[in-house]
């Protein structure tokens, strides 16, 4: 019915959309923190890695810091010998992320209030380094498998249902079930976050802080509580993103680099906009897959996905510095 090449293009597009949803998921974490505290959190990707490492570690009953303990005391401990079910482990990992949020707020950013944004940005780079080393020290740096019971592999009914579209070489659209789950989870998460921000007391306080710190303080909102809350939320989003990416490609260092892709997503969508993060994620996901399919692989030798998103954002920003949905930048002397 259609030429096969076109159908393959559509398949690439669909897969790009699914990848884009995952980018959007990481980008959401950035937007949350940026809106509420003006901190551009470079460590978001490493937080996702750390959350995934913690989850795997808890599920496998690993002894935290076992390498360090063994090196210091000459012991040989590795595992407690139990296995925690996925659901309980996710709750425990979430508790760790909340604790982390508290530590980050009380030991780092409380002391940096009122500094220039770029100083805060560099502090989060330091935080990223710290957490990367800390996570590896705590749980070991080998590549781990994460399995929380999400179905994986191609989705057969989509393949069968769409196979009739093409000719004899076309067997239907191949879409990973994991990507579908991730997309559904991301959509639920976004709806929940928006509802939280719009309809709960804490959510309103969060938006108030985002609007104006001093005005929020003057009506009795505790800034440090809100910041801990926001970092915890970002930790939660990081955990979800870590689970999805970790289930897809294993829990390893490259997880934090994949999450860096969220940066161009944000630049496209605008740093302050939740819808922007989602639309930006979709544009980047689809754009890089299509670019690789149409131009990268045939003409440029492939692997253009490494840089396409950044270049797109760079070119885009020259024409619209605040991104698609960002607030207009007004500068005063």
């Amino acid at each position, binding site marked *: 019915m259609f030429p096969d090449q076109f159908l393959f293009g559509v398949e690439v597009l669909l897969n790009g959309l699914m990848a884009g949803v995952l980018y959007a998921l990481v980008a959401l974490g950035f937007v949350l923190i940026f809106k509420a505290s003006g901190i551009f959190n470079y460590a978001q990707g490493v937080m996702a890695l750390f959350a995934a490492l913690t989850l795997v570690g808890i599920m496998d009953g690993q002894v935290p810091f076992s390498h360090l303990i063994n090196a210091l005391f000459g012991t040989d401990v590795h595992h407690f010998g139990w296995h925690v079910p996925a659901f309980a482990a996710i709750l425990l990992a979430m508790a760790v992320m909340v604790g982390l949020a508290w530590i980050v707020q009380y030991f780092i950013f409380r002391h940096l209030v009122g*500094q220039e944004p770029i100083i805060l940005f560099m*502090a989060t*780079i330091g935080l990223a380094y710290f957490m990367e080393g*800390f996570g590896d020290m705590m749980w070991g740096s080998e590549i781990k498998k994460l399995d929380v019971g999400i179905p994986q592999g191609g989705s057969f009914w989509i393949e069968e249902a769409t196979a009739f579209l093409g000719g004899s070489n076309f067997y239907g659209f191949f879409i990973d079930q994991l990507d579908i789950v991730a997309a559904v989870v991301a959509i639920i998460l976004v709806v929940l976050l928006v509802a939280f921000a719009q309809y709960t007391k804490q959510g309103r306080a969060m938006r108030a802080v985002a609007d104006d710190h001093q005005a929020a303080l003057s009506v009795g909102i505790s800034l440090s509580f809100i910041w801990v809350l926001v970092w915890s939320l970002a930790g939660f989003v990081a955990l979800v993103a870590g689970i999805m990416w970790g289930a897809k490609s294993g829990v390893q260092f490259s997880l934090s680099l994949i999450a860096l892709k969220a940066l161009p997503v944000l630049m496209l969508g605008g740093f302050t906009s939740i819808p922007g993060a989602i639309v930006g994620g979709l544009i980047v996901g689809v754009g890089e897959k299509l670019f690789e399919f149409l131009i990268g692989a045939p003409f440029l030798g492939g692997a253009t996905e490494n840089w396409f998103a950044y270049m797109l*954002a760079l070119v885009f*920003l*020259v024409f619209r*510095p605040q991104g698609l949905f960002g607030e207009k930048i007004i500068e005063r002397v």
Partner: protein
Amino acid sequence: MLYRESGDFSETYKADSQTFPIKFDRYRYYAVLIVAFLVIPFVINDYWANAVLVPFLIYAIAAIGLNILTGYCGQVSLGTGGFMAVGAYACYKLMTAFPDVSIVVHVLISGGITAAVVTLFGLPSLRIKGFYLAVATLAAQFFLVWLFNRVAWFYNYSASGQINAPDRTVFGYLVTGPNTEAWAKYLICLIFVTFTGIVARNMTRGALGRKWSAIRDMDIAAEIIGVNPLNAKLSAFAISGFFIGISGALFFSVYLGAAEVGEAFGIQKSFLVLFMIIIGGLGSIFGSFAGAAFMVLLPVFLKNVLVGGLGWDTALAAHLEFVIVGALIIVFLIAEPHGLAQLWRVAKEKLRLWPFPH
């Protein structure tokens, strides 16, 4: 006692505006130069050259380059690794294409090529600022690494995708290639560092440096008082790129000898140099040296103590290094945002009055 200006009379404007107005400072500077040029080359061995001194000197050049851009002109760049790769590959192509021309010329031309590339990537800085720009420079980092990885022309179609520095001599002595003596490596780097340091120090003291500082402090205000942001920003990108290119060229040709772009010039390198200038001191030439020394010595020190002394696993020591570096960055940003250079300044200020309290 020794460190004060009393008794040090300047009789000309030139004497008054020299780099080191205090006599003690000046003599210390000469002493450092004499030791560096006339003592160390005779006592240096392979371990010290390869583990400490040569990387220190090369990173010092890169740190000065990045400090001009980030510390003086306020444009944060996360593309240093990619820009160093431009210098390295430019140097490689020149070395293999024109074997008869001196390596010194090649290194300088590589700096020029890098300057052009960096300026190109600096063009968006006229529209975007702060961390938007920082993320935009990530585009340069990833794109350049991909380019040198994929386009075979850059590595002369070698099967491994690596670039290898051929043997080249200066005044009859080998300075690149695997058979180079430690002192020759050290000396060629030292000459470039001295040149870079003097040029950068004087540039940042002069009109150009003041324009950069004005842009850094507030670019709109600077524009109103008559600083052309186009010239100031792009000149900072170009000059920074020139130094980073030189350091990249030396890093490949003198220090590594053979390089694979993703490994040698990945994003980790960008962060390493950024950390050097944060810890050393943003907006200070001395800070670039101090930060480079610190970041080169820290892993060597940790490795000797933890792996050599306590018998730890190498991987564990590497993780601890990440933790310590990250924690140090945060501590410095909180406690002393101007880095080691500021500690040095405070110490000097105290010394001027010592032993009196006021």
